[in-house]
Structure formats: C-alpha cells, structure tokens
C-alpha cells in the first residue's frame, strides 16, 4: 500500500497539468491552424448527434473539441523501406526471406491435394530404379547408388527409428528437402520438419520397402546427386 501511495505521488510530480499561460496559447494556435480532421462539416453533425445523449457537454464545447489541432498527428506514413535493387534479376537474401522462399507455411497445404505429386514420384522411381531387374540381381551397388542419388520430393516417408521418440511414427509426403531436414505434410495437413540426424526413414515402392539412414544423408539434395557414397562397416543410428 505504501508503494502505491508513493507511485501516485510520483505521478503527480511528473504529470502536472500545464501552466495556464501555456494552455491558452495552445488553444489559440489550434484555432489559427485549423482542425486536423478534414471534411469537418460532413462528420460534425453526425458526431454531435452521436455524442449528445452520451455527454453532459454542450454542442459549442463539442465543436470546439473537433476544431482542435493535433500537430503530431500527421498523415505521413513511415517511409517505405524499398530496398534499392541495383541488379534487376538477383534477389538479396533479405528479399528472399520476405517472400517466404525458405520457409513453407505450416498450415496452408493439404495432404489430399499432394496425392498426384506422390503418384508422379512413384512412377519416377519405378522408371529410375528398374526394380524387376535390379532387385533380383546379385550386385546391388548400382541400385543403391541410384537410391542415394534419387530425388525425394513427393515421397511418402515414415520415421521408424529415432533417437528422439516423438519423431517415431511420423508419416507424410515430402515437400522440401534441405541439408539437415525433411519437411513433411502429414495426414492432419500439418507441416512437420523432421531432422535427418539420428533418424531412420522407410518408404515403399510397390512391394519393396527401402530404409534410409538419416545420419548419412546430411547433404543438400543437389549435392547428393554427384556424391559417391562409400560403403561403411556399420550403419546404424
């Protein structure tokens, strides 16, 4: 309680009303400069009739209020920070971020609308991998190379094993692949960002299932196309 009292005292020190002389000159100034509200005649009548039943003030006082000048209230907007683009075609990274090119919206995309994309991906993989011949062959290195170099946009991935238990069971269609993540649209139309590290993904093509070890796929998709993967003694989480 003592604190509140001192607060009020402080307020009274800071927020004293202006001295009488200053008040008068301000009013004179507002009369000279005119009101900051334009089109006063149209609005005035409406405003007065609206205010009449609500206030005790008389109409003359109200009109005086409307004619006040608020010099700080100017209609100037902040200068539009238009970035001066010297090159017509290249975008700066700030501009790219503003356009939202790096981040996809979290809720706008629907799972059902991506079904044709998934179908296209399945056809692409079937043609690319040529599974009838390569899966039954003895030497599967060529097949594995192709899988490593393939594109996964539109793939229906599922997280089977992961160091973080909340990622396990996440299933959806890949919309974006970055160096460290797969960005997936799951059946609830949500965008899930799943890091590749310490996760194992699986996907199906007709009657074959493939597993991807995320730890070894921490590469940008475009660089994966030219990378040569070496065989390792143990692959696991």
């Amino acid at each position, binding site marked *: 309680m003592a604190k509140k009292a001192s607060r009020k005292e402080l307020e009274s020190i800071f927020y004293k009303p202006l001295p009488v002389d200053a008040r008068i000159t301000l009013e004179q100034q507002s009369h000279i400069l005119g009101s900051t509200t334009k089109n006063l005649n149209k609005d005035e009548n409406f405003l007065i009739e609206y205010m009449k039943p609500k206030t005790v003030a008389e109409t003359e006082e109200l009109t005086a209020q409307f004619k006040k000048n608020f010099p700080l209230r100017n209609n100037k907007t902040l200068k539009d920070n238009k970035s001066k683009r010297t090159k017509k*075609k290249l975008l700066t990274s700030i501009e*790219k971020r503003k356009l939202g090119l790096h981040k*996809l919206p979290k809720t706008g*995309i629907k799972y059902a609308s991506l079904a044709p*994309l998934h179908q*296209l991906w399945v056809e692409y993989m079937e043609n690319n991998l040529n599974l009838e011949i390569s899966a039954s062959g003895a030497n599967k290195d060529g097949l594995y190379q192709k899988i490593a170099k393939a594109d996964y946009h539109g793939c229906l991935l599922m997280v089977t094993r992961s160091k973080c238990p909340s990622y396990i069971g996440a299933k959806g269609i890949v919309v974006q692949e970055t160096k460290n993540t797969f960005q997936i649209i799951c059946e609830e139309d949500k965008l899930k960002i799943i890091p590749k590290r310490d996760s194992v993904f699986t996907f199906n093509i007709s009657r074959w299932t493939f597993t991807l070890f995320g730890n070894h796929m921490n590469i940008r998709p*475009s660089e994966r*196309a*030219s990378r040569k993967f070496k065989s390792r003694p143990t692959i696991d989480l």
Partner: protein
Amino acid sequence: MYFAATNGGGAPYFISKMNMSGKKTNTSGSDGFQRLNFLYQASIVALNAVPHCPQITSVFGKNMISIGKKLQLKLDHSVKRTICKGCKVLLIPGKSVEVKIKPIPASRKRKSRRGNQRKIQEWKCMLCSCVKQFVLNPGYSLWAEQNMDST
C-alpha cells in the same frame, strides 16, 4: 544430350540405350536428366495442387538449377524460360507471370537507318517482380532449334 520438356501430367520417360545384344544400358548423366525431368513435372503438379503457395515451386526450381550446375547438365531453353531468375518459381503466363508486350526501350535501340520497330515481350514474375524480356523477331530461330531442324 538433348533434354526436352514434356507437358505437365505426362508420365516421365527414361533415357536408355540399347546394346548390340539388346540389353539396356544407361547413358551418361541420364540419372540427372531423369531427376530434372521429374522435378519440372513435379513443380507443375505442385502449382496445380497448391495454387496459393507458389513458394513450393521455387524449391523445385532451385533444385533443378543447382543439380544442373553440379552435374553440368544444361537445361533446354523451353524449360529455362519458365523458371524465374530471381525467385526460381515456375512461370505460367496468367498464373504466376504477367506477360506484356512493350516497345523496345530507347537504351537498347541501335542506330539504324530503318526505324527499329521491334517489340519486347516482358514477363514479370508476380512473386518477386523480376523481369524477363524477349525481343520479338519473327524470323529468328534459336541455335538449338536450328540444329534440330537440320538433323
């Protein structure tokens, strides 16, 4: 290696050569071309599926260009013209581009005896407002197209 674009929604084709014995062998770089082909068709499908979010197509466009750079594959001019240079979005006239025909700007006009009445077709990306300009010349054919006609 000639890589052509197919219409959106068509099935991707695979490039392969036939050996003397009839076995299929892969041509060099065919993996990359298949991937580019798939990405281009996928971007068209994605634009149809999610028309309010053209940023998805920029993901595909970026991948296309970077894969082309890494594997040193060249994009056909008909494909390259539909990828915005600034934001790498798929350009479809009317949907994601504004196409206008303008007179050639004075800075580009060469001093010639005949009045240069060439016009420019200007493609302006709706997302990033990057501009592509094509000079309209009825008698002109691209080098790639000329070679194709002769062979």
